[in-house]
């Protein structure tokens, strides 16, 4: 079972890398894949809290690399999905504790036992980013429809091309259909036109993402959430399925419309 290694990166911070990794991991594992995710943000670990596994950490990725524990000891099994694991980042070290060749070795050991290895890249284009893309078979660049995020995504896509890690696929996260309709937000087409890369998903802005992360249960579990649906669709596309993109322009349910008319939305 040779795993597919997928890295999620963005250039800019705060656009949703960690949320995307947690949700894609949950969606893939809930769909029957064996998944391990790696938090590549050494010194600023967060994937553990988003996945709700922060209380179970004993060893981390630097412990594995420096030989203080076996690989299996640093792999935390998910609470709900038995085929989902997390390798947490070290919190008290910095990015230079890991090198791209360390990552290559680690992932080589993981490949035979999993269907997917998902790597959460840190923001930026320095060492941590280089580590995160070193062993990637596929890189997903995530952005928001905002000038700064799109600009940074373009830089990262350019670097990935130069490093022959491309072509990258794009996730547009936190798209607000109402703002787009009022011409006050770049549309998915605008972003694609600017970045000229393949699209793998559009995730609408959705307050249930924050509610889910408060609880440590990624929104992909929530069958009513549109963002959850969008992440589940991306997971299926990663498996090679053809899934149509969500229609984010439709006007919602009758109840939504009544609430909007009443000025409550």
């Amino acid at each position, binding site marked *: 079972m040779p795993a597919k290694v997928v890295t999620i990166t963005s250039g800019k911070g705060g656009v949703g890398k960690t949320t995307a990794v947690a949700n894609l991991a949950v969606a893939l594992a809930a769909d029957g894949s064996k998944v391990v995710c790696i938090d590549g943000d050494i010194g600023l670990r967060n994937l553990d809290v988003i996945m709700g596994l922060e209380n179970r950490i004993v060893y981390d990725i630097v412990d594995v690399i420096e030989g203080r524990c076996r690989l299996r000891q640093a792999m935390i099994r998910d609470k709900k999905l038995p085929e989902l694991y997390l390798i947490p980042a070290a919190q008290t070290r910095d990015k230079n504790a890991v090198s791209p060749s360390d990552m290559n070795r680690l992932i080589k050991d993981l490949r035979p036992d999993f269907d997917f290895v998902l790597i959460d890249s840190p923001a930026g284009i320095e060492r941590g980013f280089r580590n995160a893309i070193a062993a990637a078979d596929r890189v997903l660049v995530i952005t928001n429809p*905002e*000038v700064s995020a*799109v*600009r940074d995504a*373009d*830089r990262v*896509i*350019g670097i990935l*091309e130069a490093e022959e890690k491309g072509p990258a696929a794009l996730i547009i996260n936190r798209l607000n259909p109402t703002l*787009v309709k*009022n*011409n*006050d*937000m*770049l*549309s998915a087409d*605008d972003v694609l*036109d*600017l*970045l*000229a*890369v393949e699209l793998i998903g559009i995730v609408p802005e959705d307050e249930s993402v924050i509610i889910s992360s408060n609880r440590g249960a990624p929104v992909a579990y929530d069958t009513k959430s549109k963002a959850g649906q969008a992440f589940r669709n991306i997971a299926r596309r990663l498996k090679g399925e053809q899934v149509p993109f969500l229609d984010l322009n439709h006007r919602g349910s009758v109840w939504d419309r009544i609430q909007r008319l009443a000025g409550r939305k």
Partner: protein
Amino acid sequence: MSFLDRLFGKKNSAESAKERLQLVLIHDRTDLTPAQLDSLRDDLISTVSRHVEIDVQAMQIGVEHDGRSQRLVADIPIKSTARRRAKKSK
């Protein structure tokens, strides 16, 4: 965007974002600042002028993109020899 903004012809913000990004990305991707582009233009003028007489006022130089690849496009009108001769004989 408010009704009043639209009434007074203020450009919508998505459009400004896209236009601004288009320019920024060209410079990011090529590492060419507007000042460097100007100096390139001056060099082109002096080099080409050594061989043919060109219409400097009508000359256009810019970066166009085709997908993710960039192309430097220069449009340099040549002054026609016939017109030049006619001018000289006046």
